[in-house]
């Protein structure tokens, strides 16, 4: 089964990214595929490359790098990103900036879309 994931909330402020991360790990462990993760609305802020959370806390930048290393595409909406300052020089190397068409392609190519 191929999942597409949409993330709408920013890092740390809301639990959305954390819930999505745990969902993605569980899906992979159960042998499913993640077709892609699309970051929209404030969700684009999860892909910021300059995060420095306290050492005793989870590091969302590193969690996303880990997902990317597993081959998962992390797609940052260019328009939502530019509004909020997520541009090529600030997006983490795990993130790939692209257009809204990619969100529709994710809907087409995935068996299931899930929003966090």
């Amino acid at each position, binding site marked *: 089964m191929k999942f597409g994931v949409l993330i*709408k909330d920013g890092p740390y402020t809301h639990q959305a990214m954390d819930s999505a991360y745990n969902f993605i790990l569980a899906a992979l462990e159960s042998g499913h595929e993640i077709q892609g993760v699309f970051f*929209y*609305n404030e969700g684009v802020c999860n892909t910021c490359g300059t995060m420095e959370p306290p050492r005793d806390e989870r590091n969302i930048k590193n969690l996303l790098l880990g997902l990317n290393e597993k081959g998962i595409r992390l797609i940052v909406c260019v328009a939502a990103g530019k509004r909020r300052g997520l541009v090529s020089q600030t997006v983490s190397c795990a993130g790939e900036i692209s*257009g*809204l*068409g990619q*969100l*529709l392609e994710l*809907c087409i190519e995935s068996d299931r*879309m899930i929003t966090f």
Partner: protein
Amino acid sequence: MGEQEKTSVMFVCRTAPYGTIFEQEAIEAMVMFGAYEQDISVAFVDDGVLALKKGQDPSLLGKKNFSMTYMILKDDFEISHIYVEKESLVERGMSESDLITEVEILDRNALRQKMNEMKAFLPF
């Protein structure tokens, strides 16, 4: 897409305009999706129906009036259906004549039936 089956996607618009950006960024997505020749529906439920109110003028907030785009969604951007939930309108003291564009007004049961046909939901 030729012979291939179209993918049915429903935007579920549930938030009021201007207090948050969700309806504006939803419409930006709808406009982009138009080019892909899929089966795109938009359903306005809960506070989402407020986004369709006529006469919006956010100039005093320094914001852009994005509501005009609803009027051209179907013709210019090939959105298949614009549904509005009747109960949400009534609860907010609104009727069809308050809306900026022509829509299909459905009650909850009918809208829930439409949801059965969807492959994916995009809630905003």
